[in-house]
């Protein structure tokens, strides 16, 4: 006996910070369809930016998403530097790299904690976030704030760092290596996690390309795309590091990619501190001529794409902000259908949806009469219960 049931995930629940609405249709225990409705988080930023001057815009766009607070302003700034045909001085490029990689570390550790919670490993949640605190301290040393950095400007960076600060940042990054590697070992070797994450939420390579998937969601499906290597910006082409790709496309692959990228980030930060040149940090741009520019940054979730059009005045004519989750969230449809309800929570998390970035949040729960519903915390419970079952069988 099968019947179609509507499962509404959203809009508010304790551990997923933004409200998002995924309406799942299930038959028995299987997901047969997914609909995503958004709109809560739309803050009209693109229109707002048309009334801000070019150098005010970074302060708006760093609040597109708190977790990608370094990526959005940098992508915008690179778009404007493209219009003005300006390159930031080398020291500024290294400083940008350091902040962006620290952001990647804190974002992936945040994700690891959330994923651990969804699977019922609450110790992982506490432990990943505890490991994350020193990274936020390093960001505070680098920029003055744990989040919302305001470190870049058109033509360079807004403030320099002393040698002591740079050494402290490198030390903190180095000390994080041990805990991160321990976390990797724990995840990659745990048979219960293998059972929960392998062959779950698979996104095929073909679907990943058609949906335009980005970041670890794409790299976990075998698409070797990474803006830092393909269209280098900041100092990435001057440093030695690897792009992490996994072929299987399941949640395990995406987990592996994110954790290994955290190790690469540590490597990049230490090299950048070692090799950073002296000199100017600001190319002192005074005027933005008419033109169009595109800036791309590999945010923790994937490519952040900004397009800017200028007409020679002080204000952008048009600023397009496209965060990676806008492309990644639709892939949830492809990777969720056919799998069990108990796997929905972790599959959704594996897309690492940063709803803020997508500027979209969800609508009310529309219950069709006579239909059962689980809210998101109930879905998380289902996921945690499944882990218990798997552990008992193992």
């Amino acid at each position, binding site marked *: 006996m099968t019947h179609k049931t509507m499962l509404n995930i959203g809009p508010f629940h304790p551990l997923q910070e933004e409200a998002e609405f995924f309406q799942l249709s299930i038959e028995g225990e299987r997901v047969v369809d997914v609909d995503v409705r958004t709109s809560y988080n739309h*803050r009209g930023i693109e229109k707002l930016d048309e009334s801000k001057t070019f150098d005010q815009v970074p*302060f708006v766009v760093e609040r597109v998403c708190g977790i990608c607070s370094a990526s959005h302003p940098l992508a915008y700034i690179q778009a404007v530097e493209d219009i003005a045909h300006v390159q930031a001085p080398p020291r500024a490029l290294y400083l940008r790299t350091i902040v962006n990689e620290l952001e990647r570390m804190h974002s992936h550790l945040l994700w690891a904690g959330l994923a651990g919670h969804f699977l019922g490993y609450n110790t992982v949640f506490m432990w990943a976030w505890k490991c994350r*605190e020193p990274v936020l301290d390093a960001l505070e040393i680098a920029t003055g704030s744990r989040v919302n950095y305001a470190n870049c400007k058109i033509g360079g960076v807004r403030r320099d760092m002393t040698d002591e600060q740079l050494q402290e940042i490198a030390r903190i990054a180095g000390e994080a290596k041990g805990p991160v590697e321990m976390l990797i070992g724990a995840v990659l070797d745990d048979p219960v996690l293998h059972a929960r994450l392998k062959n779950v939420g698979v996104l095929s390579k073909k679907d990943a390309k058609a949906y335009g998937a980005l970041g670890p969601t794409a790299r976990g499906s075998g698409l070797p795309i990474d803006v830092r290597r393909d269209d280098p910006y900041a100092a990435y082409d001057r440093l030695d590091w690897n792009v992490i790709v996994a072929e299987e496309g399941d949640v395990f692959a995406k987990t592996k990619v994110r954790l290994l990228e955290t190790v690469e980030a540590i490597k990049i930060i230490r090299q950048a501190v070692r090799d950073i040149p002296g000199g100017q940090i600001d190319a002192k741009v005074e005027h933005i001529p008419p033109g169009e520019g595109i800036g791309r940054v590999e945010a923790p979730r994937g490519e952040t794409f900004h397009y800017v059009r200028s007409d020679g005045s002080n204000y952008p004519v048009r600023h397009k902000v496209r965060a990676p989750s806008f492309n990644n969230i639709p892939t949830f449809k492809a990777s969720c259908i056919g799998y069990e309800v108990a796997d929905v929570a972790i599959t959704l998390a594996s897309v690492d949806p940063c709803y803020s970035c997508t500027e979209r949040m969800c609508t009310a729960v529309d219950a069709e009469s006579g239909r059962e519903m689980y809210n998101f915390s109930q879905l998380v419970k289902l996921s945690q219960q499944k882990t218990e079952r798997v552990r008992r069988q193992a």
Partner: protein
Amino acid sequence: MALKNWALRKSLWVYHVNTGACNNCDIEVLDLLTPRYDIERFGMILVGSPRHADVLAVTGSCTRQAQPRLQEVYRQTAKPCVVMAIGSCANAQGIFAESYHMGSPVDETIRAVDPDAIIAYVPGCPPKPEAMIAAVVKAWDVINTL
């Protein structure tokens, strides 16, 4: 009034609502649970339903879409409760005040359903976790004197 507020002199259960935020405040709220700040030692926990909450921790600038939902959540929250408007956005919509997709600010939204709502404002973008803890303590003190 005094009897009602007596009920609040115990561990505080917090329900977190995001009304259209960039996430920074939300992450810092979650950070309060983690070992460095550990608000659980004060008996404060995040609960999964507003019906169990003493404190409604509201982040975000209250977009048009979120406005009616916030009002529904407030109605569902067990009374008495304190609304904590966390961050510049929840205080006064911050940098997004001029945007076309904003609803009314969080305090006006809530006062539209309950003119006597107790609202605590925690400024910052985002407020540091220490500021949030200080805010809860201060709000607690204020309620005790009502």
